[in-house]
């Protein structure tokens, strides 16, 4: 009984999330009006203007290194910090007895 109720409530929550995320009658953030879809879904803009604005024919690289450059900078910082932390944790700090 409790498992059935739990599964049904999970299904209900999933359905509500799908309804909220739907672009036609879901929840809308940001600018109002009719052209909210233009500001929210920018993929067509990148496909149309990426080559002339950034120059690379690989649109994903255009987005990653130019339009979303801060994100890539943070990603590189995360990689650097994680590897520095891994090396700092794994290195031999002092001469342990028996080594």
């Amino acid at each position, binding site marked *: 009984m409790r498992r059935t109720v739990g599964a049904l409530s999970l299904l209900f929550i999933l359905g509500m999330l799908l309804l909220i995320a739907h672009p036609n009658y879901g929840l809308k953030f940001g600018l109002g009006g009719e052209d909210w879809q233009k500001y929210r879904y920018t993929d067509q803009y990148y496909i149309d203007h990426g080559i002339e604005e950034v*120059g690379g024919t690989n649109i994903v690289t255009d987005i*990653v290194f130019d339009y979303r450059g801060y994100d*890539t900078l943070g990603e*590189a910082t995360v990689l650097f910090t994680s*590897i520095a932390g*891994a*090396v700092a944790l*794994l290195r031999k700090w002092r001469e342990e007895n028996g080594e």
Partner: protein
Amino acid sequence: MGSDMGLIVKTMARATIPLIGIFGAYVVAHGHLTPGGGFQGGATIAGAGILFLIAFGLNEAKTRINKNLYSALEGVGGLVFLIAGMLGLGVAFFYNTLWHNGPIFNGEPGTLLSAGYLPIMNLAVGLKVYTGLVSAVFAMALFRRWRK
């Protein structure tokens, strides 16, 4: 001796490590033209380095891989990435000034010397990811704590 694998694995590693390295370098160098980029190509080349470490053992890798040099090169890759982002600082951070009005890297879209700072950033990120992953795996192999 002792930590390397058998003859079959070593022969296959000798045959495949150059091919993996060449493919990774291609992915990094053509990051602004074809699918892939710095992260993916750097991880591919790091796969070649890790294959070398696994197949030939730690003692052989210790004589070939200088881990201090690799740690330094990782920082250099990050710095080159940051400097390439700062090139167009007169307009904005991450402004692609080499592509709009730069002396180099402003060829036709689709050629190798195009797309402004994208090839520089791809090379920098590829170097950073390659040296970083090899350093991490090498540190895990080198500084193990458990007893024999």
